[in-house]
């Protein structure tokens, strides 16, 4: 097992211990999910226009979102933030590993573990009682699985970039306030992106955030035809390369100017 896999597995196992957090998260997601469903039901009941997504599709989208909420890159890696604040990051630098890969592995674990804990029970409950539909076809199901892996990688790359920014700013408060808003909105978590005004579409389509929520969900529902999949995959690949490249570049630059303060 390489160091990267080892740190992933350690972090993953540690996060799986947080049963209370998972239970609380489940309750919260359920509550918000119900509210969001009610809002959209009211919206569809009062609207006479044709909407870009049907109500049953929207409900599926909402419950998928509630189940996979923890995938969103909301926060920096708490352990690395702590290390940067206390200076223990010095120890990270004396490891014979590629630091970016190391932090990326942690970031991915940080996304996957809580998601696994919450997503499975939420999807079962939503499928049984709350109107979550199965994938449109088995092809859509497989493509959704692949897109979700892509979403994890994307979320990890964004988290890693946020974490690396701490090497400049020290305190993650600014990032921690800013990112949730950006991520919630541009990923489609707040409102499915197709409901946004037409003038917004080119922007949200160009940004990488939709690959975490909107794209996988619409693939699941069969809302995005297979003919578009290769282009979507290509765009996601480019964004991943850019974000990882940027993270690596920032990290190597900050290593050169890094000062670990204190004795």
């Amino acid at each position: 097992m390489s160091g990267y896999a080892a740190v992933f597995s350690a972090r993953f196992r540690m996060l799986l211990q947080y049963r209370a957090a998972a239970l609380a998260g489940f309750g919260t997601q359920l509550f918000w999910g119900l509210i969001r469903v009610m809002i959209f039901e009211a919206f569809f009941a009062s609207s006479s226009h044709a909407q870009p997504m049907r109500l049953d599709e929207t409900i599926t989208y909402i419950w998928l979102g509630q189940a996979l909420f923890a995938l969103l890159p909301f926060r920096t890696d708490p352990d690395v933030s702590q290390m940067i604040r206390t200076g223990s990051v010095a120890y990270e630098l004396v490891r014979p590993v590629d630091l970016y890969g190391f932090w990326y592995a942690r970031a991915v674990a940080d996304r996957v573990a809580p998601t696994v804990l919450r997503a499975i029970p939420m999807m079962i409950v939503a499928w049984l009682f709350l109107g979550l539909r199965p994938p449109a076809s088995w092809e859509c199901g497989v493509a959704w699985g692949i897109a979700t892996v892509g979403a994890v990688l994307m979320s990890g790359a964004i988290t890693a970039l946020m974490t690396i920014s701490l090497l400049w700013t020290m305190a993650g408060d600014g990032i921690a306030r800013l990112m949730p808003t950006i991520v919630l909105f541009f990923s489609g978590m707040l409102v499915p992106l197709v409901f946004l005004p037409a003038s917004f579409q080119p922007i949200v389509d160009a940004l990488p955030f939709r690959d975490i929520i909107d794209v996988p969900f619409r693939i699941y529902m069969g809302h995005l035809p297979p003919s578009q999949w290769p282009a979507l995959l290509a765009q996601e690949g480019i964004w991943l390369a850019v974000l990882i490249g940027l993270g690596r570049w920032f990290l190597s630059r900050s290593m050169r100017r890094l000062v670990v303060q204190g004795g």
Partner: protein
Amino acid sequence: MPQILVENLVKTFRIAERQPGIGGAIKGLVSRRYRTVKALDGISFSLEAGELVGYIGPNGAGKSTTVKALSGILVPDSGKCVVLGHVPWKDRQAYVAQIGVVFGQRTQLWWDLPVVESFDLLRAIYRVPQPQYAAKRDELIALLNLEPLLDVPVRQLSLGQRMRCDLAAALIHSPSLLFLDEPTIGLDAVSKLAVRDFVRRLNRDDGVTVILTTHDMDDIEALCSRLIVIGGGHILSDGTLDDLRNRVARQRWLILDLAQAGVVVEDPDITVIAQDGSRVTLAFDPAMVPPAALISRITAKYEVQDLFVQNPPIETIIARLYGEAQ
């Protein structure tokens, strides 16, 4: 070729100066004055394999900066540095696989994991083959008496326990060079002795080169065959502890507990350094007056309840050295 070669190492830091008060804070928003601090101002030394060197100096002298540069964490402004055939900050990944580092004020163990899992993780990170790892781990567990601590999460360990685990963690990959940055800071007497004992054995039996920074005189006396003193970014002295003593001051201290407080001790060969109630600290030069003669002279003249002779604390010697340098 020495194991460590450092030539003319320079590192400066730029520090934003802040003026006190609200006015100063507001002024600082508009224009900021910077002050450059030379943490290292041309440091040169070399080390052979198997040495155990104390690297000491007052706070802010540049000790940790040197250790950080040597361990590849910090990129110096200029100067040459070759350790184990590598330039530390250039090929960091290949280089750090061969060194061990302990920063006494921080821990490298995973806070939430049991100690033994941290070791397992480090094994994976350093890619130590399993049989070699098992042997090394068991050896370290036995030497540092870690058996009862292995399943305890790191956050529950006491400082002394944690330091023993940290030492083991730094050695899982059998490095040939070990940096110890204040390894005994904050430890109780028993833990200090355990750490010292272990470091001595490591150096003697396994031939590991050790660079030790510390403020603890006893660490140095117990361990170091060679002492490098640094102050204000310069090397002030490089040699054995006795060399340093003889160079700076061949002074020794005689500490008396008198029967009565407030008695003034007088003798031509002594100077009174401190008097606190019945405790008097005297300084004398053992080359001028044999300690035995001085003690019998003083005990004959004054009523002494207890006495002991000691070397002046390292801080005093360094402070004097530091004073000379300025």
